[in-house]
């Protein structure tokens, strides 16, 4: 196992595109949270009646403990950026035919796929650490009440990590099946940004069906419901979405297992 990690690190550490995209991710996650934080401050710090009412109603979603939830939700919007790296890491292996060279040099197909799974795990860890740093900075700079429970909602770190791993695994599967980086990126981005959200909403609004929650990305989207200040516009719906999280933890775990089972299976079966 250590040898596989070492080999993957040799592949990644001098891969410029990896560091570029990680740099973009490192800017994007704080950036999106800073943006929403600024919007919040803009509205609530106005000395108007409306501003005061809003502040009273929504509280401060950027203070502890709700900061964990808010930052997790906003950060998760940009999952497609680390997904670019995941797709490139697998499609490069096919473009350069190094996937076959790794086998020729002495890896089994299972070891090759394990190496790729480690890449996805590594990215999940990096992105999660980034999330924790952003959440801590935003939480500490917005929490006046020293008695506030700073860690009570830190379990959102686990939910964020699970969602990230699940969605990056889907991106990986697209890369594995398509093998061409640009096509895989286009398919994943189109599906992530357009196709699935439309399909989920069409099912919900037109057919009054909840089947959309079992779509590959929506399954784990439900791990991070809209933050309280948005969700409470529909209090009943918000509570229901919070209650559904524990079920979606199970569904997401099942999806992750199925996704990787499929990836290992297809890699074992097909010619390189």
């Amino acid at each position: 196992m250590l040898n596989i990690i070492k080999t993957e690190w040799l592949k990644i550490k001098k891969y410029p595109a990896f560091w570029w995209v990680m740099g973009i991710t490192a800017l994007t996650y704080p950036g999106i949270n800073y943006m929403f934080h600024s919007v919040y401050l803009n509205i609530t710090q106005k000395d108007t009646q409306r501003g005061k009412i809003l502040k009273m109603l929504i509280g401060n979603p950027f203070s502890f403990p709700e900061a964990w939830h808010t930052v997790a939700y906003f950060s998760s919007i940009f999952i497609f950026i680390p997904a670019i790296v995941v797709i490139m890491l697998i499609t490069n292996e096919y473009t350069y035919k190094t996937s076959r060279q790794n086998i020729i040099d002495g890896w089994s197909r299972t070891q090759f796929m394990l190496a790729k799974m480690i890449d996805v795990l590594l990215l999940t860890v990096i992105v999660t650490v980034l999330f924790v740093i952003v959440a801590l900075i935003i939480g500490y700079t917005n929490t006046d009440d020293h008695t506030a429970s700073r860690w009570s909602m830190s379990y959102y770190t686990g939910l964020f990590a699970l969602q990230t791993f699940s969605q990056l695994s889907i991106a990986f599967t697209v890369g594995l099946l398509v093998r061409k980086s640009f096509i895989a990126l286009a398919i994943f981005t189109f599906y992530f940004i357009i196709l699935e959200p439309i399909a989920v909403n069409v099912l919900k609004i037109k057919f009054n069906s909840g089947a959309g929650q079992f779509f590959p990305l929506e399954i784990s989207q439900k791990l991070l419901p809209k933050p309280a200040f948005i969700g409470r516009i529909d209090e009943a719906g918000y509570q229901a979405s919070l209650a559904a999280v524990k079920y979606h933890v199970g569904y997401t775990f099942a999806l992750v297992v199925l996704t990787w089972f499929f990836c290992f299976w297809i890699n074992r079966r097909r010619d390189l």
Partner: protein
Amino acid sequence: MNNIAKSYGKIKALNGVSFEVPPGSVFGILGPNGSGKTTLLSIILDVLSADQGNFLWFGEQSSPEQRKKIGSLLETPNFYHYLSAVNNLKITNSISGRGDAEMMLAVLEKVKLYERRNSRFSTYSLGMKQRLAIAAALLGDPKVLVLDEPTNGLDPVGIAEIRDLILELSKKGHTIIMASHLLDEVEKVCTHVAILKKGTLLTTGDVNDVLVDDDLVEISAADTSVLSLVIKNYCNDIKITRDGNLLQIILPKGTAKLDDINSYCFSKGIVLNHLLFKKKRLEAKFFELTNN
């Protein structure tokens, strides 16, 4: 290798191919384009799975551990384009366990890439990429090498260097399995050959047995047409081809006696102005076998 078969849809790429590679041999796999050479090598390196048949490495079932002991170059040089030669060899070393940092530099020196060892693979010419692939195969001095078209993209000097390298490795007792369409190369370095056509094994064995199974004699006279008519009655098993003013006659192995041919022609009133015994070249044999 026992009864290896592989199909791509309706196309049979390999049709029950069986042969054994003697240890210490330089084994050439020959065949026209699309004859199944690379498919065969891909199967024994576990890149493709065979539809039927099996093969053994070192007398045992194939496994990743077995492949680690084999230096291989399959079809094209496969490396990470953004990494240098040294960093690519580090990956080869990390996966296979073959060689160490010192050996990496030694093999790069051997294939004349030492000066460019820190340049990215993407900046290499085709020949340099091929040299790096050969360096990776040589890493750790493996006892068995599988080389698919090893001289692809190399200049004449590079081709000669690879030929010398193969001969040097062969002298040291290494086993080399080599697919090539450069018959001249195969003829110069191989001790054994297998010839494939459309996925079927036509012949295999010691290169001298495969090569010299007929006698080839070149003759000419003032009137080639008359000579052609006369010589076809020389014996029953004669085959004649005409090349300009020269006639090439092929006789069963060991039956071509130049004195007898000369006397026969003279007795029929023909004076030969050219009479030459030629070892039948692999190229001729190859064309004959593959009907090209």
